[in-house]
Each structure stands twice: as structure tokens, then as C-alpha cells.
């Protein structure tokens, strides 16, 4: 129970940070939703990274490495290390510049202004909201599981999920973006420092990493976990598309708007891969090694949930007080759901409430209050869904949130780079994503038993796998969906009229000609 007490102490600190941020706030919408666009380089890096470091990173990755081996690092980590900072460099900086100049607070505001789109913007908002909810559910579910495991089962999952949801709701409700950014920075620092201690302690408990690895390599059943043997190359290729989701996630888009200067992006872009290395490498490695630990293997077999392997490792090898601190570190990652909740609230108040005249009628204070009420509502829904779902964390997130947002990324790139893109192109892309994700969800519910769904001349083209749906040789739906969405944006744009030249000149200003090149008439 000492571990649980330490975690509760940590939760109290986090709540206090949120309330402290509330005292520093200025009660305006810009301050509550965007921290007055004032985040400096260090907080920007730590909070942006913390936002992306969710329960998938700690619990999901180690759980999947327990089952499939070290290849999980290549699937999600090294691909993210290349793609995410590159997309932030290419599109994030431009989203920031346009946002600062034109006053955008959400990606949908940017889309509406850039493409002169009204109702289509509302459609994109609805789609983003539907796709973001599963990601929030992941956080609440992970919180419940973490507290359950840390307390040795004395805190039920539903109660643990409720506590996590309440704390997150508390500091987002009071602290808004400033509170969320500070909490995320604190959480990232905590995990980076104590994560290192965890690796040393667990390695020591296993009798040293070298001997643990040698034991596994001597066992023909376990040795493949230390190779890429269990990684289907087509799945590995598919996972290159998943990190594209980051730039399309509204909470990342909104975070890009919070930087004080563009120079804040420099350190974020450079250090992001190294942060990924520091967090993911130990999680995946320990997850794979835990398959060779009899205590962990039997506990997972009994409980049936590999997402708990990291916590079981801590409880087995670390002293109780340290396990508590490290459990708090895991909790830190799990609670990254805060920025998604705040993003949904920002989107609702800006893209729906303010857009339909709510702010002009009821004032800015009412807008902030609406945002806070929305935070309460969303967290409550996420809690209920989180305690009633049974699928593994990793699979829920990948299937719906990551796939959908990766397929939405062509809209972001078209808005930022392609002058000829139009609102109907964006609508076609968004509609393709909605239809594709609905199709995947239908397929998984209609075909519950793994097997071939559709084949052509004895070649399986659509397959129901134990964890979801796949295409030819294991290619994941994210690949065709992203390509189809790109095609839809291009075709839809080329077939329709571009935005007015006034709008295009605002977003793509003509280059300024030097005075000496002008002819004197």
C-alpha cells in the first residue's frame, strides 16, 4: 500500500500545479486555452513530448514487447523519432506562424479561414472529436489499471480510473493550457529521471541484463523475442504511416500555437528523437525481458493482461517506496490525456460555441466557463467508456485514433503547402477518413473470428486478425486510408474553385520585389 500512498501524493502535487497555474492566469480565453501563446523553449519541448507520451508509451509498448519482442521499438518509436519531429518542423512551424498572425486557437479555425469553409469546418470538427475520444479513453483506462496493479488489486480499476479522471479534470478545469503544460513538463522530467533509476533497479533484480538476455537466448521459445522475427515487414511498413497522426491531432496542433517564438521549435525538433530514445528503449527492452521472468509470465497468464508487465516488474524488483515513485512516473505518462481533454474543450468553445455567436452574445467569461463545463462532461464520458471496455490499450488507440488521424494528415499538409487546395478537397478527404474508419469498425464487429474476409483468386486481400483488420500480407488499414484520403484531397481540390485571391494572398503572400528591380515609368 506504500506504493499507492506515494502515487496519491504525486497526484496531489499535480493538482496543486494546476491550481497554481489558475492563480497565475488572466481569465481570458486566450490565456485559458493557449496560455497566452507564451511557452518558452524548455516548457514547449517537455510539454509537447509529454503530451505524446501516453499510456501507450509505457504500458502498451512494454505489454506488446512482452508478446511480440523488441521489434515494437521499430514499430512505434524509431518511426516516430523520424516522422513526428519532421512534421512539426514542416507543418507545425507554419501552423504557429499563421495562428499567431490571424489569431487561430484551433486547427479547425485555421481550416475555416484558409479554405473559406463554414459547414465543412464543422464536419471536420465533429470527425476530430469522434476520433479523439478513444485516445482519452486510453488514458482513463490506463490510470485505472496502473492504480489497480500498484495497490496489489486493493484499488479496483473503476475506482482508480475515477481518481485519475478526477485529478486530470481538476487541473485542466482550473489551470487550462498553462496548468496542462506545466504538469506535462513536470511529468516528463519525473519520468526521465526516475525511469533511469527503474532500469538500473530492475536490471539488478534480474541478476544483470547480460545474464537475463543469455537466459532468454538459451530458450528457443523466448529467443525470438530478442529479434525482429515476430515482426511482419508489411506491418512494420504500415507503422511508418502511424506517426503522421501526431501533426493532425488537435491537441498537438493547438500546442503548436502556444509557443512564444518560433525559435521554441528548434530545440523541440532536435531533441524530440532523443526523448523518444530515453523513454521507449527501456520500456520495450524491459517488456521483452519480462517474458523470461517467471513471476511476470505467470501473473500475466493469470490476469490475462500483458499491459501490466512494467508494473509487475517494478513490484517484483524495486523496493516499495521506489516502486511507488516509479509508479507515479508511469501515472505521469498515463495522465497525458489532459491535453486531449483540453483540446476537445477548446475546439468545442471556439469551433462551435464562439463560431455560432456564443461569445458575442454571452461574453468571454461565459466562453471560458463553457470550456470548463465541457471538460467535466468529456472526462465523465471517457471514464464510463474506459471502465466498460475490455480491449487492450494499444489496440484501441491504434485502430481508431492513430489510424484516423494519420489519414487526416493530408488535410494539414494541403492547407499549409498547397495553394490550390480547396474546402471541397478537404471535405472529400475528411469524408474518406470517416467512411474508412467506419468500415474498419464495422468489419471488426461483423467478423469476430480471425480469418479471411475477402480473397481474389485465392489471394487473401482483407483479413480479420486477432487484433483487428488487415489487408494483403498484413498491411494495416492506415496505409490505404492515408493514400485514399490524399487522393480525395487532390481530386476534390482540382475539380472545384480555389479560395479567393484575397485569402490566398494572406496565406501565400507574393514575394516582396526589391526596389531596384522596379521599372521607373
Amino acid at each position, binding site marked *: 500500500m506504500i506504493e499507492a500512498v506515494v502515487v496519491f501524493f504525486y497526484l496531489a502535487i499535480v493538482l496543486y500545479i494546476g491550481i497554481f497555474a489558475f492563480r497565475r492566469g488572466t481569465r481570458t480565453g486566450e490565456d485559458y486555452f493557449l496560455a497566452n501563446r507564451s511557452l518558452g523553449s524548455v516548457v514547449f519541448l517537455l510539454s509537447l513530448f509529454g503530451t505524446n507520451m501516453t499510456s501507450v508509451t509505457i504500458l502498451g509498448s512494454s505489454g506488446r514487447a512482452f508478446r511480440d519482442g523488441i521489434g515494437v*521499438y521499430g514499430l512505434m518509436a*524509431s518511426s516516430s523519432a523520424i516522422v513526428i519531429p519532421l512534421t512539426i518542423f514542416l507543418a507545425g512551424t507554419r501552423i504557429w506562424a499563421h495562428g499567431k498572425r490571424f489569431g487561430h486557437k484551433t486547427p479547425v*479555425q485555421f481550416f475555416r479561414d484558409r479554405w473559406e469553409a463554414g459547414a465543412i469546418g464543422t464536419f471536420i470538427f465533429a470527425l476530430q472529436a469522434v476520433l479523439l475520444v478513444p485516445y482519452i479513453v486510453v488514458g482513463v483506462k490506463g490510470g485505472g489499471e496502473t492504480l489497480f496493479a500498484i495497490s496489489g488489486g486493493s484499488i479496483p480499476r473503476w475506482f482508480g480510473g475515477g481518481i485519475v479522471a478526477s485529478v486530470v479534470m481538476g487541473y485542466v478545469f482550473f489551470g487550462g493550457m498553462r496548468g496542462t503544460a506545466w504538469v506535462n513538463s513536470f511529468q516528463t522530467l519525473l519520468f526521465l529521471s526516475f525511469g533511469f533509476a527503474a532500469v538500473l533497479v530492475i536490471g539488478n533484480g534480474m541478476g544483470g541484463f547480460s545474464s537475463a538476455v543469455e537466459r532468454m537466448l538459451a530458450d528457443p521459445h523466448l529467443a525470438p523475442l530478442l*529479434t525482429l522475427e515476430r515482426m511482419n515487414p508489411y506491418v512494420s511498413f504500415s507503422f511508418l504511416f502511424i506517426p503522421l497522426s501526431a501533426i493532425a491531432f488537435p491537441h498537438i496542433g493547438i500546442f503548436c500555437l502556444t509557443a512564444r517564438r518560433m525559435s521554441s521549435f528548434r530545440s523541440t525538433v532536435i531533441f524530440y*528523437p532523443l526523448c*523518444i530514445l530515453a523513454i521507449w528503449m527501456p520500456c520495450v527492452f524491459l517488456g521483452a525481458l519480462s517474458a523470461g521472468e517467471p513471476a511476470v509470465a505467470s501473473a500475466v497468464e493469470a490476469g490475462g493482461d500483458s499491459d501490466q508487465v512494467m508494473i509487475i516488474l517494478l513490484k517484483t524488483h524495486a523496493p516499495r517506496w521506489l516502486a511507488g515513485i516509479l509508479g507515479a512516473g508511469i501515472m505521469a505518462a498515463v495522465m497525458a490525456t489532459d491535453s486531449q481533454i483540453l483540446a476537445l474543450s477548446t475546439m468545442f468553445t471556439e469551433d462551435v460555441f464562439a463560431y455560432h455567436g456564443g461569445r458575442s452574445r454571452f461574453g468571454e467569461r461565459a466562453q471560458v466557463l463553457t470550456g470548463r463545463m465541457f471538460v467535466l462532461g468529456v472526462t465523465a464520458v471517457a471514464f464510463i467508456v474506459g471502465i466498460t471496455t475490455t480491449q487492450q490499450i494499444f489496440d484501441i488507440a491504434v485502430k481508431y485514433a492513430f489510424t484516423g488521424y494519420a489519414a487526416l494528415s493530408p488535410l494539414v499538409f494541403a492547407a499549409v503547402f498547397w495553394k490550390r487546395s480547396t474546402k471541397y478537397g478537404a471535405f472529400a478527404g475528411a469524408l474518406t477518413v470517416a467512411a474508412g474508419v467506419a468500415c474498419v469498425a464495422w468489419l471488426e464487429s461483423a467478423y469476430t473470428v480471425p480469418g479471411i474476409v475477402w480473397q481474389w483468386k485465392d489471394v487473401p486481400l482483407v483479413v480479420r486478425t486477432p487484433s483487428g483488420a488487415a489487408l494483403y500480407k498484413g498491411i494495416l488499414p492506415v496505409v490505404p486510408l492515408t493514400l485514399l484520403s490524399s487522393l480525395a484531397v487532390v481530386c476534390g481540390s482540382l475539380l472545384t474553385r480555389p479560395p479567393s485571391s484575397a485569402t490566398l494572398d494572406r496565406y501565400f503572400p507574393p514575394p516582396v520585389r526589391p526596389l531596384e528591380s522596379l521599372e521607373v515609368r
Partner: protein
Amino acid sequence: MKRLVLTLLAAVLLGLHQGFWMRDAARPLFFGFLPVALAYHGLLTIAAAGFLTLCVKLAWPAHLDERGRSPSESRTSGGEGLPR
């Protein structure tokens, strides 16, 4: 030219990410415990940081900084000014 080189480097990194030529190998163990495939992907992550440093040094979009600093031309404050 700089952009072409950076684009090629990005393509090379993404190609190297697949690492299919070492699928069945666990050895050699780096530092005596790190399987070769994991060490390879770790090095690839460090290479990604190097590549992104090059992007920042060689292709930093400085004009956007000016654009962001310019006086706000907000048509969107609260969203009411947007086209309906």
C-alpha cells in the same frame, strides 16, 4: 540543392528503418546485453536527431518568424469573423 539533399536523407532514414536484413539475428549483443536489432534502431533514432539538426541548420523557415511577429490580422477572434 539543400532541400534535395535533405529529402534524400529523409528517404534513406525511412528506408533504413525497415531493417529487414537482420530479422532473425539477436547477436552481437551491444554492451553485452543489447540485441543487435534494438541497438540498430537506437542508432537510427540518434541519426534522426542528427538529420533534424541538419534540417534546422540548413532549411530553417526564418521568414515564418517574421510572419508570426507581424501585427495580428485576426479575422478569427472567437470565430465570428469567419466565412459562414
